[in-house]
């Protein structure tokens, strides 16, 4: 063993690969900046002297109630109620990020649990859970959301519930597929032959091997959830005003086609949304490249297949 190469830990390797990916790095930086902006939203509000819900009827609106374009007082202009778009954007980041992260984490948890149980036990459990996933996937999501909101009224928890309810299946299917092949692997038999029980096998043997898909798909689910929330807000089914969310801001801009005159109302939240989802998508791709051992050797050549459920 004289010609031994220095061995690196897999975490270190992953990080090195991730950092070597320039786009991924940029995406990560953007997300960090965004999180900072969300946390420091009150700071931005203090800096500009404009609260997120403060209406500047005199300087923020024309006498006939039109918003004013970006300028010295309002860097990103004002909205139709004379509020500072910049400040609202920063505050909106909180809600968008919170929804994106919480929804994808919850969905991931459900997806992983269901996928793991279905894939591991197989048989009728798999059939039942598999059919359940099929069922959820055959529900016309937006229509149901529409009806739900009509019944219960819009609220953040409802949006969250709906997003989670409809997005765990992708994860569930991926995990199930992986577990189906993992459980046939001999290390599972080996564990069994040591006397390990089902729970122990699922948690200590199979789960660690799902790290890559879990991380990748959770990351990928964040932008989908953010877009989903934005779409709901756009249809007037999102969060309660005057709290700002990006989707809500865009919906307000779309309302009455005001954006055709006040382009800044759609440009800034639109870009924020685009860059955020883009960053998470790029980060997801980068993580996939870094985590997926299959892509280690032929980095440029191989990309694992994905079936992404598109956001409406």
């Amino acid at each position, binding site marked *: 063993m004289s010609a031994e190469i220095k061995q690196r830990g897999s975490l270190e390797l992953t990080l090195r690969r991730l950092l070597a990916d320039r786009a991924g790095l940029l995406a990560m930086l953007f997300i960090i900046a965004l999180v900072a902006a969300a946390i420091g939203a009150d700071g931005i509000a203090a800096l500009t002297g404009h609260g997120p819900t403060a209406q500047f009827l005199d300087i923020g609106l024309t006498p006939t109630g039109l918003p004013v374009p970006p300028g010295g007082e309002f860097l990103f202009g004002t909205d139709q109620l004379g509020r500072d778009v910049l400040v609202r954007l920063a505050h909106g980041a909180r809600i968008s990020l919170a929804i994106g992260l919480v929804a994808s984490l919850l969905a991931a948890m459900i997806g992983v649990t269901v996928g793991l149980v279905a894939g591991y036990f197989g048989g009728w459990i798999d059939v039942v859970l598999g059919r359940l996933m099929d069922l959820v996937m055959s529900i016309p999501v937006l229509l149901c959301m529409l009806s739900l909101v009509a019944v219960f009224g819009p609220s953040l928890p409802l949006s969250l519930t709906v997003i989670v309810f409809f997005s765990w299946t992708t994860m569930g299917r991926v995990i199930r597929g992986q577990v189906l092949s993992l459980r046939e692997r001999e290390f599972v038999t080996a564990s069994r032959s040591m006397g390990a029980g089902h729970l122990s096998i699922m948690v200590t043997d199979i789960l660690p091997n799902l790290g890559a898909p879990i991380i990748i798909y959770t990351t990928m689910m964040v932008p989908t959830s953010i877009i989903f929330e934005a779409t709901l807000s756009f249809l007037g089914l999102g969060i309660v005003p005057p709290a700002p969310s990006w989707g809500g801001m865009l919906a307000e801009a779309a309302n*009455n086609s005001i954006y055709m005159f006040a382009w800044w109302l759609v440009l800034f939240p639109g870009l924020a949304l685009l860059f955020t989802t883009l960053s998470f998508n790029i980060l997801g791709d980068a993580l996939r490249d870094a985590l997926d051992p299959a892509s280690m050797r032929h980095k440029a050549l191989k990309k694992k297949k994905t079936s992404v459920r598109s956001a409406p």
Partner: protein
Amino acid sequence: QDAQTGGTLRVLGTAEIDRFDTVPPATADTGSFFRAVTRQLINFAASNDADEQIAPQADLADSVPVPTDEGLTYTFKLRQGANWDAPDGARQIVAADIERGFMRICNPSLPNPAVSYFEDLIVGYAEFCAGFADVEPTVEAMKAYIEAGDVEGIETPSDDTVVFRLKYAANDFIYLLTLPVTTPAPVEVLDYLPDSPEYRENFISSGPYTIDSYTPDTQVTLVRNPAWQAESDPLRKAYVDTIEVVAGVQPDAAMQQLQSGDGDMLYDINVPPVTVQMLTMQGDEKISTLAEGSSRMIWINTVSENNDGALRDPLVRQALNYAVNKAAIVQQLGGPEFATPLNGIFPLGILGHHDFAPYPTNNNEGDPAKAKELLAQAGYPDGLSLKMPFRNAGNGAAEAQVLQASLEAAGFKVELVPTPASDFYPRLITNFDNALNGVWDLVPSGWSPDWPGGAARSIFQPQYTYDGTHGTFNFSDYNNEEANEIAAKALATSDLEEAAKLWNQVDEIVMANPPTVPLISQTTVLYHGAAVQNFLPYAAGGNGDWTNVWLSR
């Protein structure tokens, strides 16, 4: 440009025309449709002149009659040549058709709320309706009841004469006769339930147009009614050949299609304020306005136990009246051209409106200091927390947020509750239990009278009187005997100036201990495509008159 006939008028709407039959309750927008396919004794002219818009004119009647018998008897002569497009050919509309029309209003299957006006007024009508209510809501039973029945106060001495006898002299009776619900009914319609699919299929027109095809929820196509004779109709010119009323187009998209020439007029869509300003900025001149007597106000819940019944305290309600920034709402709606701050219950253009300010503030911008003072006086120096649901559609959210901002400045913490448009009135507000249980404290609300002009009755009665039944637009069962008495006098006098003064008193009495915060009188803004000529607002339809425009493409 000279008038020209022909062409297809495309009218765009979000919802479809909700009623083909004038009897069941319909939205105000349906008035435009009824204008094209039905005629009433009295109607309005389409006009750009605000006064002319609300002046009653003879339609089926050959003239607007002067009441006799101290205002208790109205005798109408019917215009000859006004025909039904009956299945067996054109047939003159006769007096019996008028009475039949009235009889159908209180049918037990789909009655019209406007029935109460007539029960109140026409001799024997309440009795007729009480009997009708016990009839099985089937075609046969209803038909039999109508054919056998008679309303004492509606007499048909000859085919071309109708006489109405009233319980008291009502100065707005002529206005009541402009309501589409008073449309005469041909004998054939008794074979169908009101506005049933069969009714729609066998539609009998009396206007210049009739229904050619109806694709539910998608499109109604109107073509010329062969039985209609132009010389019998002074109000409708019927220039275009075909009218397509398209449903399912969202307001923004509809506005765009109007601008791009894919559509000509709007059906149930009001031009959004922002769009108006954008259009004005671009120098677009195809904007017109129409005062229908619409107003917006905040209703105050005076029956709940929230905040230990704080809102029952007149001081608190007065504080609310001081707090609100009405100018900001006007600004939101596009400025003084489109809205005016309102301080009483009767909006501009309604007999009874007067310019007074029980709770004056500078430029109507609200007076937070004064409001806080009153609040403290009432025992709430730390302000109050109030729940305010709002209608989550159109301008609702913007208005609610503006209100929230000005109320908060005066020490009211306002929690906004977005409510789907479909739920707002039917489920939340008009359900008295919700008021009693304190589900809401304040609600922004709007009201348009059932007819324009002398419509104080249609504002005061449904909103500010309580006769023991809940579920109307009097959200917290407001009632004031003093106001009621004066209102009764105002209705019974035939002297309009006298009536106006009395209504002013009513307004002042109500506002002294206000159940609402009046916000603005609103003007409806209308818009049309470039091809549309002679666009004249029609007050009872809330939009341009289809039967008087012509097209030049």
